[in-house]
């Protein structure tokens, strides 16, 4: 009697375990799964949150149908650790039969997934990571965020035009930072400028003071800054302490530094700072006005930043590709459909370069100003249809 009950219990437990562990075996033919892998916890959590919010907003606005099929988004947290990203990608493709994977908060996370995308022939839409080389790692990688050379070149050219001759660069010491540094330095040097020093601060570094002090002591015309999304506030706090303006040193950077999400927290010290970037929440277009309003309504207290539009446009691209293939989820066909796709995003007109699968977009020169008591990056100059300069230079050499 007792034994029987125990055995029945054991069986039940097994069955339970089996359902918990096995993939959802039955899935209807008319569902397309999009596996999104983002850092939702850990140091890069804010990137993940912005993108996840944008994806939810997109689906709330546009519905869950594309190419005649239901699009189901599965969001996973990789905590920003590469081997977990890779495993999640593998599970999403093998178990959940995801037709597209997307997300990828940091460069190594995207690169870790590249071999899988290639082997599985599944499109990987990069919504955040910004090192130039990523799209070269697999023919199935398509990017809707930006590349750092793309965002850096315009500010470098702006600096040259505005009579800046001597510069110091300070970037975070990892892939994107080095990309930004190289692009900026090359552009300045090509135009006869002088780079006094190139400083790199460790990725995990709460204290920027010594680097900033060194930059100040070198007395350049301008200091160029790049830090990843999330560190801008801390950096600008310390920049404002140093009083660069008094020494006649202009502080410029990519828009990562004056990240919309944190801009309001940075205080008046950042007023007047000039940066170049692919997106500002202040971008003046009906698409963007609607986007910002809807985003802030769905996420009170959170302003959409450039990471969020990467996620939003990534979804737009996936939907459009599915529409074009009429719901065919063959990865090669999807990537083909994505190539050359162009549409108007909240950030302005964008398209996918058919050659490199990287994004072509306008890059704006902006200045931090106060509007209705809030700080915004106000765009005042546009560089239209910028291709990733890194790959453009490579193509030119060939």
């Amino acid at each position: 009697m007792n034994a029987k009950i125990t055995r029945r219990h054991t069986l039940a437990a097994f069955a339970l375990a089996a359902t918990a562990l096995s993939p959802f075996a039955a899935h209807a033919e008319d569902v397309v799964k999009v596996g999104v892998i983002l850092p939702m916890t850990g140091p890069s959590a804010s990137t993940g949150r912005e993108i996840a919010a944008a994806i939810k907003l997109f689906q709330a606005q546009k519905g869950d149908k594309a190419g005649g099929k239901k699009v189901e988004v599965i969001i996973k947290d990789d905590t920003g650790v590469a081997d977990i990203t890779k495993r999640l990608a593998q599970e999403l493709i093998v178990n959940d039969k995801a037709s597209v994977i997307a997300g990828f908060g940091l460069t190594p996370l995207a690169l870790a997934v590249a071999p899988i995308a290639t082997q599985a022939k599944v499109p990987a839409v990069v919504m955040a990571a910004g090192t130039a080389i990523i799209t070269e790692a697999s023919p199935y990688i398509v990017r809707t965020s930006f590349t750092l050379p793309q965002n850096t070149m315009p500010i470098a050219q702006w600096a040259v035009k505005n009579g800046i001759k001597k510069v110091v660069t300070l970037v975070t010491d990892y892939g994107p930072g080095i990309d930004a540094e190289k692009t900026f330095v090359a552009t300045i040097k090509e135009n006869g400028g002088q780079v006094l020093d190139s400083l790199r601060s460790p990725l995990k570094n709460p204290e920027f003071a010594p680097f900033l002090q060194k930059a100040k002591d070198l007395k350049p015309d301008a200091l160029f800054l790049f830090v990843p999304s999330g560190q801008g506030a801390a950096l600008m706090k310390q920049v404002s302490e140093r009083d660069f303006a008094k020494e006649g040193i202009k502080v410029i950077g990519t828009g990562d530094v004056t990240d919309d999400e944190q801009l309001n927290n940075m205080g008046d010290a950042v007023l007047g700072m000039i940066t170049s970037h692919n997106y500002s929440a202040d971008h003046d277009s009906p698409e963007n006005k609607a986007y910002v309003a809807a985003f802030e309504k769905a996420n009170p207290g959170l302003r959409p930043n450039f990471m969020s539009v990467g996620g939003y446009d990534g979804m737009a691209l996936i939907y459009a590709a599915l529409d074009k293939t009429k719901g065919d989820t063959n990865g090669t066909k999807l990537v083909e459909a994505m190539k050359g796709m162009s549409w108007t995003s909240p950030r302005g007109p964008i398209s996918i370069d058919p050659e490199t699968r990287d994004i072509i977009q306008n890059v704006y020169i902006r200045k931090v100003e106060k509007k209705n008591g809030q700080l915004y990056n106000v765009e005042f100059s546009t560089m239209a249809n910028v291709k990733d300069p890194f790959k453009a230079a490579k193509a030119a050499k060939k």
Partner: protein
Amino acid sequence: MIDTALHATTGGESRAMAWFAERAKWRWPEFALWIAAFALAFVFPSRSALFNEVAILALFALSLDIVLGYAGIVSLGHGAFFGLGAYVAGLLAKAGGGAGLYSDPTFGLLVAAAVCGFVGYLTSFLVLRGADLTRLMVTLGVALIFAELANRMAWLTGGADGLQGVLPGKILGLVEFNFMHPEYAYLYSLSVLFILFIVARKVINSPFGVSLRAIKGNALRAGAIGINVNRRLNGAYTMGAAYAGVAGALLAQTTAFVSLDVLEFHRSADVMLIVIFGGVGTLYGAIVGAAAFKLLYDLLAAATPQYWQFWLGLILVLLVLFVRGGIMGLVSGLYARMTGKGETP
């Protein structure tokens, strides 16, 4: 009195021999555990990527249990060897380009073990100075210096972008790693874990292993009976380092990628947590702890991707408040009750 004692020796020796044999005997839950572990590959092949992570983590935890649980060296920098092993195996597989000796996975494991064992032996001399807090910080410092070196040597390691083009060859020249079949990678990692576990179990039950427990139990007495305490600890630390290197190598081979986070602080901290969580100085604690930790994480992260850390923290806190000796403390208590014996020695 002595005379009577001498006469009373009948049977004492055989009883003693039997006691030693009994203590090292394999018990049924052990067989059950390993059979279940191998069976998982066939029952749930689709979750094998997760199981593979568990197996690698278990081996990593096992390596720390040798150092922490048996040699009693508190290390908060064991990730140094894990990362070193991963880079060694990754660079080898990259150099081999998917074929030949360099890309041979077994060769990669052996070289990783040798390199990490050697570096472990050298660093063991630094680590053995001082008490718990000092050792904690020296190991941590060494690991952080390693991480910074890997970051600086981007020409070799790929720096912050990670090491690309890691192409491990066929396992034993027969089976290819195939991401559509994560169970191959899992079975590979699990087999390595199993073999190294048997080796560790044998070593722990050897006179050397007994002397390690003695040193941990009472270093003063251990020295007074003629044990060269430092030399034994050098040995244990070397072994732990080599094991950690193999775990790192497995990660590099089965994910075909190495990034800087193999050397990050959180690896060392997590693995220490896992060993304590599972139960220190039990060997199985490392394995059970790794499995419980990963599966818990997987469940919690699926349920609440943003706030899983809270629940994991709560479990750790409750476990310390209400259970002694981690999961193995719980398990051996239950086992003792089931078999009606006292606690297993």
